[in-house]
């Protein structure tokens, strides 16, 4: 390549140190857009709202590109780097830019800053959020053209993007939590966008409350982490700090300046904790004082990570909290594409990648994450077999794909999980938008049984949907989805958790089943929707292709879903010989601490091999198996048996899968009803009866009755008073007499 061209790409147009103070603008622009659309949208009119909302995101995209470029800046051979506020002087963070806008709130020795950080991990997410976000905004301008609430819609959508950007750019857990809950709030508003339908509004509430269960765990995990940091500071000796290339003074200074839950500081904690570093503190060291005293650092870390898993399960729709996501399809389709496929639901995966260094300290937590992911993924894939609603299939598919990412995170292949996050964002957004286009062109029909034969009438939609289906299933292997999924499964197969070696094999086998299942249900959707003859039950006799606002994003996303496979190719040299995939190389500055911790603590044995042609062929076979089964079933088997009775057994299986294995009913029965019942009983019995009636009114009643009783003595009759007085004196006299005599 021409040297000057390389030089051009290596030099950020705006130097990193000049750009970093503007990082906040990336969040502020969409926020401003949300404000303008939400407050003035009604008067601005449709076109102006579109302009404001889209340009806010476009602006954020441009800034994100500049930020991303700045993080890769290597002008004059000098890689962009900054001082690590938690490390010694020499310790720098490479390939990252950051800016701290000062204190958000501080109390006691705790503080939270408005600190933003962009490195390669958050950089790639910035591009996805603003890039895919912009395409979806563009798509929505056409999709929502008949809706009166357009200004609300775009305000919420912009708000969502702002929250999501906060989530990925935050340099500490509390600020991340702002985005974490912010996306939940925006999602609540968007799922319930058509609030006049109360089922849709309920779906929004279900999503928010389920997410809150996760947030409950998230908060507790954060507090425990704060306690762990202070316990560490009390007990550590210089060798511990040395292992993390910091010193007590620097570390405490960093905490005082940036707060205890800053990711860079937590990374130092992770580096200092393992056994191999020497020093006073290791994973097996008991905490001496404070609220956690008696527990070991390792044990606390496992509980923290498991709590974060529950938190991530809420946001990323994993067992046991996945139930909200399929219902969330009540929202407009672009929302499903942006929030419930490409960005928000991947927040859990992002969280674990961000805290990968801490996560690898606990093989137990990692194994749990991997197993939860695998089981969720398989369960969702099975449910997807029987769903007839195109959006529901895609929703369960999302749950399933997120499960695959969790498997990757749990087994320590963070880079592949992040890569699958990216490719999934492209092909799943394309699929959802394709589904939206199908609905738009077919009178809002979502039942795939009532569609069919669309490939002639909706050429662009069909082509892009096909490409994305191939990408997600891996039936045609030169596609991003095949490579990113295979990268995860390869890592899952060859990485080993210390003491839990069986997990690799178990999860890998489940992974193969998931591959086949995915290929089956996605092929089913594609075949029923686009091929064959148009269903006689279709709402419209002829579908119509959507406007360019809708097809252009489809084409771009389909292209990205195809091309990004190159990132999984082993083209980059690995330090220490051999080659490594491009994306792994790209994320290595972010993930290096995790690798170091895993090596020193010997909790995970990370494999560095690259899959060979044989491995790829084996994986391809499973995809072909699923796809072939679907083709056989829906092209030959079922069409030839139309009108024949279905065996009772098959109907029962289908009904169970259609009803999502009755998980929602189970939760209703064991969780929701009891809580409501307890609330009702407490209110009626404890509050109204015991406290208010018996105790409070009882006091008043007794007082009144005593008063009434005593009133009888107050007769006003002087003779009676005199008689009583005489009696009393007599009694007194008798008493005195008795006392004197005895």
């Amino acid at each position, binding site marked *: 390549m021409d040297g000057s061209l390389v030089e051009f790409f290596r030099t950020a147009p705006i130097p990193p140190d000049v750009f970093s103070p503007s990082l906040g603008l990336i969040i502020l622009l969409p926020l401003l857009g949300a404000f303008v659309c939400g407050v003035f949208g009604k008067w601005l009119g449709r076109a102006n709202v579109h302009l404001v909302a889209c340009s806010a995101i476009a602006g954020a995209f441009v800034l994100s590109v500049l930020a991303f470029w700045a993080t890769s800046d290597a002008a004059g051979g000098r890689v962009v780097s900054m001082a690590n506020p938690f490390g010694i002087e020499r310790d720098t963070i490479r390939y990252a830019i950051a800016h701290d806008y000062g204190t958000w709130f501080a109390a006691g020795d*705790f503080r939270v800053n408005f600190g933003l950080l962009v490195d390669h991990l958050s950089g790639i997410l910035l591009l996805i959020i603003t890039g895919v976000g912009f395409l979806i905004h563009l798509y929505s301008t056409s999709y929502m053209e008949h809706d009166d609430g357009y200004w609300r819609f775009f305000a919420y959508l912009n708000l969502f993007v702002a929250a999501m950007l906060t989530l990925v750019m935050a340099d500490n857990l509390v600020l991340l939590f702002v985005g974490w809950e912010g996306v939940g709030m925006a999602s609540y508003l968007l799922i319930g966008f058509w609030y006049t339908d109360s089922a849709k509004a309920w779906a929004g509430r279900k999503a928010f409350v389920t997410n809150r269960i996760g947030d409950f765990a998230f908060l507790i995990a954060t507090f425990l982490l704060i306690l762990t940091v202070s316990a560490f500071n009390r007990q550590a000796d210089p060798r511990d700090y040395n292992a993390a290339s910091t010193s007590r003074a620097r570390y405490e200074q960093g905490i005082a300046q940036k707060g205890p839950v800053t990711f860079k500081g937590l990374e130092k904690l992770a580096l200092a904790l393992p056994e191999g570093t020497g020093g006073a503190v290791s994973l097996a060291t008991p905490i001496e004082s404070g609220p956690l005293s008696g527990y070991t650092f390792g044990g606390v870390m496992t509980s923290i990570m498991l709590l974060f898993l529950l938190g991530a399960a809420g946001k990323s729709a994993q067992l046991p909290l996945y139930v909200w996501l399929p219902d969330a399809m009540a929202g407009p389709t672009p929302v499903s594409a942006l929030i419930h496929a490409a960005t928000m639901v991947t927040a859990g995966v992002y969280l674990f990648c961000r805290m990968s260094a801490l996560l690898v300290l606990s093989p137990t937590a990692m194994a749990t994450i991997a197993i939860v992911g695998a089981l969720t993924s398989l369960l969702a894939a099975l449910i997807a077999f029987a769903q007839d609603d195109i959006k529901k299939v895609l929703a369960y598919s999302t749950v399933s794909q997120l499960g695959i990412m969790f498997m990757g995170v749990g087994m320590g292949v963070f880079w592949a999980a992040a890569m699958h996050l990216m490719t999934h964002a492209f092909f799943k957004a394309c699929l959802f938008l394709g589904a939206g286009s199908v609905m738009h062109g077919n009178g809002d029909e979502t039942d795939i049984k009532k569609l069919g034969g669309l490939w002639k009438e909706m050429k662009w939609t069909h082509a892009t949907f096909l490409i994305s289906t191939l990408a997600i299933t891996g039936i045609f292997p030169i596609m991003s989805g095949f490579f990113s999924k295979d990268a995860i499964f390869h890592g899952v197969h060859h990485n080993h958790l210390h003491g839990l070696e069986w997990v690799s094999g178990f999860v890998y086998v489940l992974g193969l089943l998931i591959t086949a299942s995915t290929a089956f249900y996605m092929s089913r959707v594609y075949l029923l929707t686009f091929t064959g003859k148009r269903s006689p039950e279709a709402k419209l006799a002829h579908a119509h292709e959507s406007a360019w606002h809708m097809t252009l994003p489809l084409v771009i996303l389909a292209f990205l879903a195809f091309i990004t496979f190159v990132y999984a190719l082993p083209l980059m040299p690995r330090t220490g010989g051999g080659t490594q995939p491009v994306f792994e190389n790209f994320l290595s500055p972010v993930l290096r601490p995790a690798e170091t911790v895993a090596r020193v603590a010997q909790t995970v044995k990370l494999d560095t091999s690259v899959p060979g042609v044989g491995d790829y062929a084996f994986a391809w076979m499973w995809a072909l198996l699923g796809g072939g089964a679907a083709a056989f079933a829906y092209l030959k088997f079922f069409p030839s048996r139309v009108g024949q009775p279905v065996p009772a057994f098959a109907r029962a299986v289908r009904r169970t899968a259609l009803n999502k294995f009755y998980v929602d009913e189970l939760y209703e029965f064991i969780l929701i009803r009891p809580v409501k019942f307890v609330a009702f009983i407490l209110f009626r019995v404890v509050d109204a009866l015991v406290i208010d009636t018996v105790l409070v009114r009882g006091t008043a009643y007794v007082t009144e009755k005593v008063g009434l009783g005593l009133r009888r003595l107050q007769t006003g009759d002087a003779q009676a008073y005199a008689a009583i007085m005489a009696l009393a004196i007599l009694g007194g006299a008798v008493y005195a007499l008795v006392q004197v005599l005895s």
Partner: protein
Amino acid sequence: MSFFDTHLLNVVIYLPLVFAALVLALPASEHGQVRTITFVGMLLDLVFGVWAYFRFEPSGAEFQMEYRVPWFQQFGMSYHLGVDGLAVSLLLLTVFLGPLVVLASTTYIQHRIKEFHLALLVLQTTMLGALASMDVLLFYIFFEAMLIPMYLMVGVWGAEDRRMAAVKFFLYTLVGSLLMLVAIVAVYFISGGPGVRSFDYGTLYNNLLAANQQLAACTNGVEGNCDSLTGLAATLHTYGPWMFAAFALAFAIKVPMWPVHTWLPDAHVQAPVAGSMILAGVMLKMGTYGFWRFAIPLFPVAAHQARPFLAVLAVIGIVYGALMCLAQRDIKKLIAYSSVSHLGYCMLGLLAVTSEGATGSAYQMLNHGVSTGALFLLFGFLYERRHTRLMSDYGGIAKVMPVFTAAFVIITFSSVAVPGTNGFIGEFLVLMGTFKSSLPLGFGAFATLGVILGAAYMLWMVQKVFFGSITHRENQHLRDMNVREMLTTAPFIVLVAVMGLMPQPFLDRIAPSTDRYVARASVGAPGATQAQDGQLRVEVMSLPSTAAAARPSVPAAPLAVRE
């Protein structure tokens, strides 16, 4: 020395009373003038209140803007005003709510308008007075006087069951505060011999301090035997728990803590919108403020012994209050029970005795005033239109009242503590303080359950009232908010965002008070460092020299002798 250097607090406190006199002079038929004068009075008070807030120097003395003159010297009383960080913050909240309450009542109150506004102005004076009192007896007078206008407000302008609610409210709170009066007098007598004793907060506290430290040392000592104590420490050992109990009961009723909370739902449901707003916004804080200022610092040892018990009650309050909300059909009752839950957080933060917890508690007091005040305000608008409080009588309102819905939903998010709104900061700090404290981890974990339940009940209510299709014909033509209503709501919404995104200016003013509170409350805890006396002692201004006779039983120079 300008007039305001010494008299600013007096101005803030008595300005509403001056305007009450003006209103009194107006003919009762001049409704517009009565309302305008009251509003102007409240607005002017807001200006002075904000001025006082900004005059408060976080790094300065503990109590600022003090004013002290002799008053009933024979009883050891003086007229002594002064505010610390917490008091000045609550004072700001009170003056902030003042004008908005008047605006909110413009159409709500339709009879006895003059009397209503008189009650409002007098109530304002008593609340501000209680917050700024540095003399315990003066505090008590204001604290009790508050009941009368509130009693009238509920009893005269309330809903259908107003008499019952008013009487219940009055008696319930009176029971506690009469016990507290006994305890105040008792503290006065034990705190020193004739001539030294005083009702002044500073003197009282400083007199008790050494004894409290002695008591704490022996209670938490290895042998734990306090029978050998003599003097004041022995008295505190025997009677301290009883006196603390009297104070605690009075304030717990006011907060209200579980299980003495049942007056609150009735009073809130029956009170007019102004009554609910003030009750939730300011009066409940008198309870937590009382714990913070009097009950815990004066009896740190007893407070430390009762801490697990009180913390259990606070956690029960959080969860129980939230569960109660799930069982309600009446919207106002739901909001009232949510107050029980939110105030549970305030109490838990106080009892954690960590600076995070106490700061969060103080901030949560402000937040609750803003968000619950706004919820009552907004519901008041709805009630004016439909005259029903049942959720089932609404449904699908969002379609006809979009602006109202937007406002309500924003406040709802603040109430369920979504990050970025004010509620989050308070709740987060309280929970973190609880986790950091010496209370077992279970307290924090159970309290965090409120996060889930809070979202469940608030969004359930929002869903029932606003979403779905319109199920009642009467709701089809509801008017959306008018300009007055929007102007009344706007300050709340602005504050939700400002306090959520820029909490530090508020926290800075609270911080010195929390540090001192934590130091004083820790006197009773084991391992308290005795060396920080400088921070423990309450430094207040002494009586002006002209009042050398303020020491009651010490005979001054004989009056008859001259030359």
